[in-house]
């Protein structure tokens, strides 16, 4: 099968406008008889569902949480980008497009990214109209801040809770449609499989997580808005329930998986404190604006941070990257921390952490504040108090969160940080319409592979989720559904539904029949360790090959020795986890295969064999300027398909932050 990205003809700037004016429409009376299933209720799912319902389609929404409002979009802190140019600092659709392509290390599709940048402004308008309380200036206008990887201020925000406010906005729109009866909501339901009939996706099998019953649901089209798969690493900043199951089942039913090895490791997370750790907490990237990152110069130094004199500290980012210093992009900062810890210079009990120090900032702010207050000979104590006040104003909530989790006061001792898995750029391969390789099956938001290339810029995930749901799918779904108006709702007694339900039941029965000795978490932790060690921040041929063989062994062991307690006809969170971990194990193997295939370094993917003499990532554009789309051939075998990436508007160049 040849991949067809269906990019419209014409100049980059006109593709989307032309597409919108020429795409087939569905008339209102026909929309009423067309049914759409949406899996996931985060930014992408909620915005798509409400928009489609407003247009007149019959919509069903499924989420595994107890309410649509819990989706993990809610945890995004920083902000949402939009090319409004409110700051008059030279921003434009083209610049946002350019920054996103460059930030993604030239591994994203130009046409999609341009469209994303173009609709970004509509998102802000829509959210404000819906009552999302974004931050404002004293004049009553919306406020912006800057974010990594850009030179303009285009990030809109709501304190450190931008994701929460945007999600609750999208949720309110969704619930409004539920109230109007145009959306039927299925909370505490998990998608178990997609159902294909005559080559088209026609519905899903879902499990009611409270009664345990399997249900069949028909749809003329199915939208997977089920988020990313960072939990394949066990420890990540994702929610405990975030999983790949919906996307993975789709892969097994013919939807290719794009760039699975592209994962983003975020540099400023609170380090692991012990084996009990269940998740990692991110601290906003903004902390790098004022903090200095260092480790001791002496290997294995056991002194406390405050006992190590200035000249014995290695500010390694400032040393290696004098131009950008502590503000290098996420992937560069993460790898540098790993390099120091691997070399034996790590700090804290685990030695897998580096210091993020605010002492210099507190001193600096203290002096400026004393000047502002006209205090000529401030005491050292006064300076500290002033400095702390300023830092508290800027970062107080983050410092409080750090203290809450670690029990240490970051105003007095440097924070300890370490990188953690945060976001997955890879996902189901989609064309310009956001349709997967299965007709009628779409993927939106983090669940698809499309817009971030090999590395996502800060404040772009929220933008993409809402762009897909509010402003892309309402148009592109018409291209498909306009041809489906004659298709009557298919009975769920159809053999394809019956068989898919049997398969789902078969997996559940098989899990219970094992009656093994080890918990699901036991296997998940082991998988996470393999992935983190060998398919994490740095990857090598040797490591990846080992990982693949270890994962295969783990898979066999899982299916022989996992213990799932309780029963299938009951609320049973262990059974839910078991199904998800089974899918993570298979995905992990494919991620390693993809990483092994891509013998270049780009964005979040760093192959040790492909680096410059100074240890920087080395891209190989002639060989690897393509999307790797993996077809599941059954029995854990996969075929690689390539979508060549053509750069017409942008000239490919090396990223340098020196």
């Amino acid at each position, binding site marked *: 099968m040849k991949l067809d990205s269906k990019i419209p003809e014409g100049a980059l700037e006109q593709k989307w406008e032309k597409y919108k004016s020429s795409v087939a429409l569905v008339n209102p009376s026909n929309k009423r008889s067309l049914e759409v299933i949406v899996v996931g209720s985060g930014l992408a799912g909620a915005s798509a569902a409400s*928009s489609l319902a*407003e247009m007149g389609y019959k919509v069903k929404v499924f989420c595994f*949480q*107890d*309410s649509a*409002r*819990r989706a*993990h979009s*809610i*945890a995004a802190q920083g902000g949402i980008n939009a090319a409004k140019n*409110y700051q008059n600092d030279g921003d434009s659709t083209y610049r946002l497009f350019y920054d996103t392509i460059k930030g993604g290390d030239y591994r994203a599709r130009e046409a999609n990214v341009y469209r994303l940048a173009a609709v970004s402004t509509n998102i*802000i*308008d*829509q959210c*404000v*109209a*819906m*009552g999302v*309380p*974004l931050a*404002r200036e*004293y*004049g*009553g*206008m*919306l406020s912006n801040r800057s974010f990594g990887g850009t030179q303009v201020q285009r990030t809109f925000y709501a304190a450190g*809770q931008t*994701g*929460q*406010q945007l999600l*609750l906005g999208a949720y*309110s729109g969704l*619930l*409004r449609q*539920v109230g109007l009866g145009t959306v039927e*909501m299925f*909370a505490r339901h998990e998608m178990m499989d997609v159902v294909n009939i005559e080559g088209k996706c026609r519905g899903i099998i879902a499990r009611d997580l*409270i009664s345990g019953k399997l249900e069949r649901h028909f749809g003329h089209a199915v939208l997977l808005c089920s988020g990313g798969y960072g939990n394949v690493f066990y420890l990540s*900043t994702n*929610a*405990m329930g975030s999983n790949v199951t919906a996307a993975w089942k789709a892969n097994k039913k013919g939807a290719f998986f794009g760039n699975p090895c592209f994962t983003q490791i975020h540099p400023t997370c609170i380090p692991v*404190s*012990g084996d*009990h*750790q269940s*998740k990692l*907490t991110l601290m906003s990237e903004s902390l790098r604006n004022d903090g200095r990152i260092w480790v001791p110069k002496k290997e294995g130094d056991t002194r406390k941070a405050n006992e190590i004199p200035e000249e014995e500290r290695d500010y390694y980012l400032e040393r290696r990257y004098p131009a950008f210093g502590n503000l290098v992009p996420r992937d560069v900062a993460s790898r540098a921390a790993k390099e120091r810890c691997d070399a034996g210079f790590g700090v804290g009990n685990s030695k897998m952490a580096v210091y993020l120090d605010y002492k210099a900032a507190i001193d600096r702010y203290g002096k400026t504040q004393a000047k502002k207050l006209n205090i000529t000979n401030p005491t050292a104590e006064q300076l500290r108090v002033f400095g702390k006040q300023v830092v508290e104003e800027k970062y107080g909530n983050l410092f409080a969160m750090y203290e*809450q*989790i*670690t*029990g240490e006061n970051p105003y007095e001792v440097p924070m300890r940080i370490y990188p953690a898995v945060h976001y997955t750029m890879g996902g189901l391969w989609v064309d310009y319409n956001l349709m997967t390789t299965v007709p009628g099956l779409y993927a939106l938001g983090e669940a698809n592979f499309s817009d971030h290339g090999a590395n996502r810029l800060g404040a772009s995930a929220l933008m993409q989720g809402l762009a897909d749901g509010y*402003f892309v799918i309402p148009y592109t779904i018409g291209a498909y559904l306009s041809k489906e108006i004659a298709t009557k709702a298919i009975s769920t007694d159809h053999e394809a539904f019956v068989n898919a339900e049997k398969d789902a039941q078969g997996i559940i029965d098989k899990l219970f029949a094992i009656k093994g000795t080890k*918990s699901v978490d036991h296997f998940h932790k082991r998988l996470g360790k393999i992935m983190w060690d060998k398919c994490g921040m740095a990857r090598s041929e040797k490591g990846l090959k080992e990982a693949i063989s270890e994962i295969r062994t783990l898979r066999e062991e899982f299916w022989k020795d996992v*213990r799932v*307690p*309780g029963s299938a006809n*009951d*609320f049973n*969170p*262990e059974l839910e986890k078991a199904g998800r971990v089974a899918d993570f194990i298979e995905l992990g193997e494919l991620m390693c295969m993809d990483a092994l295939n891509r013998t270049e370094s780009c964005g979040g993917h760093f192959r040790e064999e492909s680096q410059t003499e100074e240890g920087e990532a080395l891209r190989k554009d002639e060989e690897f300027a393509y999307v790797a789309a993996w077809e599941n051939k059954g029995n854990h075998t996969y075929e690689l398909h390539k979508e060549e990436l053509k750069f017409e508007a942008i000239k490919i160049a090396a990223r340098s932050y020196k």
Partner: protein
Amino acid sequence: MSGNMNLTLKIWRQKNDKETGKLVTYPVKDISPDMSFLEMFDVLNEELITKGEEPIAFDHDCREGICGMCSMFINGRPHGPKRGVTTCQLHMRSFKNGDTIVVEPWRAAAFPVIKDLTVDRSAFDRIIAKGGFISVNTGNAQEANNIPIPKSDADASFEAAACIGCGACVATCKNSSAMLFVSAKISQLALLPQGRVEATTRVKSMVAQMDEEGFGNCTNTGACEIECPKGISLESIARMNREYFVANIKS
């Protein structure tokens, strides 16, 4: 995981909404003060699974205090003894070695128990569906900066919007009142010019649904404000009452 805390847990076990439940005692050993309260539950569940018993069902997801899914009533207080945090943000260093800790589900007629510590909070969704929104379809919106909004109003609206819908306010209230939850949404939208258009119908229909779900009335004890992990203030209840009063005069 080596920790040095030994604790006695008394945990509510209930098979489903039909059967009656009871407190069951579980000793836990070697708990680290760095663990979160939910990680301590992970350790206990792992032990129960190993022993062949059924683990304790509890709701949780983001484990960073924002999704609102975790919901334990710990020693008589929702989200435990500390103010301003959810259960997932509560760490074991807030307890002492040798402590006995009683853990129950949210208790309210409108939040029936599903299993053990898991309850059904869908009543909140049904209230929001009655008016917790601004009726603007995708594509309707005007340019975002066309309506300037005073910073003080925007900030107050944001503070009300910080509600995570966890239900701690209901769980702690002796009347099982949902007034803090409902008034937070009413306030968020009432403070913004975009939200004024539907203010009258919104407050009436949301309050009607709140009553229909079986939540109790407010008698101003203020427990909800104390226990709210996001610091939603009683002022929002006062604002909702004003909105409700005006709405009824208008009609």
